[in-house]
């Protein structure tokens, strides 16, 4: 289980990385960005990924930051998940993202794995893409044509595929600060602590005068990408979030799903059922938090 041979570059600046990626692309060389390596390294070892060149972003210090900027939290793509987990700012201002981070793998993986890498990798069972859909996270990427921003709704294309160009470097993830009083929750079902989820749900729930004003609900681990469950969201608008209503919304969310994937641990039916259970539990948890 050893990678096929590849060339390795570790440019010290973003500009050099972008330039290198552009040049390699022009030369027809298959190059891949290496961040924390927590997903890419096993793929290299199993030779399911065999790029000719790896461009390691590990030396680019300017991509490692967490800061508050005009009502948003900006996280540099190379910031480790462990740093996000340890950030008091994120814990206070964006508790949903913080809770999601703690569900990613184990401490060792969060220590090496980058925040940007998880979004770029777009694993369907990952927590982050669902959170991105719920929170309307905005991504910044830099390519040969300069910088552009991509809203979460346009970012995830399909199974492990994003709308990033192969020459683009994801540089920043911008999270909105969670408005005070907004309820939130994320729950997942995994076989063991730290495993990728068989099914999971993330939600935010805003109340106005005791009724749901804005509910965001997304599922992960079931389809090729994380999915917004808009039918249930709309159903809840203007309704009092009592047990029966939330249960009905959860059932709706599960019914609306495209046929879930299936694996040795969970059939499509079971996954759909889990989404109903988790959506109900999440909505209850979020409703209890909302004021």
């Amino acid at each position, binding site marked *: *289980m*050893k*990678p*096929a*041979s590849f060339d390795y570059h570790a440019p010290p600046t973003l500009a050099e990385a972008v330039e290198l990626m552009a040049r390699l692309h022009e030369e027809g060389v298959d190059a891949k960005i290496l961040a924390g390596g927590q997903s890419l390294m096993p793929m290299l070892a*199993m*030779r399911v990924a065999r790029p000719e060149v790896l461009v390691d972003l590990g030396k680019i210090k300017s991509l490692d930051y967490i800061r508050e900027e005009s009502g948003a939290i900006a996280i540099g793509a190379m910031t480790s998940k462990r740093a996000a987990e340890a950030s008091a700012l994120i814990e206070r201002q964006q508790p949903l993202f913080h809770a999601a981070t703690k569900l990613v793998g184990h401490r060792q993986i969060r220590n090496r794995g980058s925040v940007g890498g998880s979004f770029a990798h777009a694993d369907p069972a990952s927590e982050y893409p669902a959170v991105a859909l719920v929170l309307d996270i905005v991504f910044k990427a830099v390519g040969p044509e300069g910088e552009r921003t991509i809203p979460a709704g346009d970012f995830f294309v399909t199974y492990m595929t994003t709308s990033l160009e192969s020459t683009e470097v994801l540089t920043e993830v911008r999270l909105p600060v969670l408005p005070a009083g907004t309820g939130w929750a994320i729950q997942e*079902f995994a*076989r*063991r*602590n*730290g*495993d*990728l989820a068989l099914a999971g749900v993330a939600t935010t729930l805003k109340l106005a005068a005791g009724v749901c004003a804005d509910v965001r609900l997304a599922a992960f681990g079931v389809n090729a990408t994380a999915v917004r469950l808009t039918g249930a969201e709309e159903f809840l608008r203007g309704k009092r979030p009592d047990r029966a209503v939330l249960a009905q919304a959860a059932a709706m969310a599960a019914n609306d799903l495209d046929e879930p994937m299936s*694996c*040795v*641990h*969970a*059939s499509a039916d*079971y996954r759909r*059922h*889990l989404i109903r*259970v988790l959506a109900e539990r999440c909505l209850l948890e979020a409703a209890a938090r909302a004021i």
Partner: protein
Amino acid sequence: MAIKIPTLPEQLPTTQPRFVGKEIKRVEDPGLVAGTAAFIDNLSLPGMLHCAILRSPHPHARVVKVDVRAAEALPGVFAVLTGEDVRRWANPAYTAPEGWGGYCIAVDKVRFVGEPVAAVAAVSRYVAEDALELIEVEYDVLKPVPTPAVAMAADAPILFEERGGNVIQSRVYNWGDVDRVFAEADHVVGNTFRWNRVGANPTETFGCICQWDTVDNALTCYGSYGTPRFWAMGRAMALNLPTNKVKVIPQPQGGAFGGKGGPRGTDIAALLSRKAGGRPVKYIEDRMEYLLAGFGQSWDRHYDAALAVKADGTVTGFRVRLIDDQGAGAEGWGTISVAKPLAAFTGSYRIEAARYDTVLVATNRAPTGPYRGYGPPPHFLVLESLMDMAARKLDMDPAELRRRNYIRPDQFPYTIPSGNEYDSGNYEAVLDKVLAMSDYRGLRESQARGRADGRLIGIGVVSTVEPGVFDWNAYATVGVQGIGVPEGAKVAFDMLGNLTVVVGFNLQGQGQFTVAAQVAADYWGLDVCAVKVASASTDIAPPSFGQGGSRLGVAITGAVLGACEKLKAVFCQVVAHLMQTTPEQVELMDGRLRLKANPQVGMSVAEVAGTMLGRSDLLPPGMEPSPEATFVWTAEGRTMPDDQGRCRSYLTGANATHVVMVEIDRDTGRTDILKYFIVDDCGTRLNLANVEGQLQGALAQGVGAALYEEYVYNDEGQPLVTTFVDYLIPTIHEVPMATKDFIITPSPVAPLGAKGCGEGAIHTTPAAVLCAINDALAPLGVEITETPASPHRLWKVLRQVAER
């Protein structure tokens, strides 16, 4: 001269043992913690090459052509091995029963996914794997045999054509008047059970460095070998070498648990070395190779079983039909797992009669290997589940049903219907202690409260016997020959009185070096750290088996003590000669050889050893100047099996009762273990920490088998679980730290009274957890009889309730 080995710690020549029976720090740990232990992958030899193996993607296919020309031409490649080389140089694996083994590289056909079809030795593993991509193999795909049902069908494709069918062995054993006890029973409680494949997963996979001596035509193998002599013999037979021309050097191992099936890996590396002109070749099995084909898969079983029960709860009969999916032949020694339950067939109970109807079947799954417990853990899951079903039928408390049927303390030594003799025990005392420790009544009350709130809470109370100290005769029913497994040790003092204990095995994790050091230290009045334990290679080690069969802790204790006794006799002669008295007047106590009549007068052990090596003029005439002795221990009183397989095989019977409380999430089917209690009795505990470690580790593996681990194959015989993403070994988050206690009923027949306890809780935990789950489900009128009781499976069971 018969050597008498102390059967209790009090019989050691010391006023008070300082180490035996204590929780002392293990002598092997500093090197493990500091990373200086020489695991095989840390080792490299001059000129060494690296091996990579090309494996079959098909479960069943004829190998039509293997073209290795491009691989051979790749710079850095030194040798490529194919089935043609192997046909010329090697023999198929020896198996029991005979004739069910493949060559180390497929010759003519492949029988499981992951079977080696070619191998490369190159300057690095990277280059070797590059070369694999250049090998072209043409297969003629055959219809796969994915299950025993398919294998036994009349028109089934046949794995080993020369055998004429896929049934490896089919035998029925009758012990006592089984038909009568079932006819006379008030209740017959029966069920089917499916135990899915699980297996050993040591931290370190298999690895070796093999070097073929092309001048002497001899082979040296360094590697993670647990039973080095056995390996050496097997390699000699497979590679057409005299047994004394194969030298195996066991390195410290990162666990084994029965897995680490490296025969093919060793033979391949050896033949590559031969083909590469004698350069050493390293093969390190990677995790995917291990999971696919590393003998880490065991116990793939279909059971149909029943108990005969009287109205008062007396169990009189136990019958079992077992169809065991051995996978692609018997090369992994998985057959033994079917034989071993004979050593404890009826568990902790007085059951009059029993029947064991066994069919061992070959399929296109990976060949099965040994796994900690080697067969009884699934067997006890069946027996104990039936005990619980009987208790429900009789409306009896499951603990009380067990109590009623236990073998009583005054009945030992007790011969079970399947022939083995249990040495000692006090099962009721173990039960009482665990019931008190767990506040069993309180648990039942809280279960009742939980049930009233609609929660699915269950309690398991399960008792088992762990056969300890194996002997070959236990496996005679599948064709294993012989009686008397040897374990040798040499104790040797140097001129300055420092002691070395030489053994024929290396570290594997259980702590046997510590046991050897403890025993020797207490015997000679030394500090445990002052004793050096050295591992010898097979060409110079005394006869030895090594780790396996819940045996080595007891066996090495016997070996060290036997050698000590021999040496003491010599020392007494020396001292008697110097003091002008007779050896009978001299005794050893607390490190001094002294006069019985006048204990102030004596010599230290170091003085005696120094005299022997430095002053031959002072020795009794004709005495060798050798303060050393070797003793090879084996259990006495083992017997030849009769036609029903009955014999005295395993020497000791340890006993344990577990109490576990679980809760099932009704919505998701997920099981959480809320509480776990263990009381066990393995006789004298030579080292408290060692025993606790074995128990807790085996508990983890039991939890894995009950709830998480499973090698899944699809209908075509393709393995679907090939990485740790899907083979779910429970972690510290999933495994409860059990509350533990013990009682001590020493074995009257084993050295220092210690019973085999290395396999431990894996005998009990899967049954205990499954019984607790079914106790939780009982009010709903549903049950689960398949392992692992995964959330998905339990959800399907719970759905039956919803749909009613």
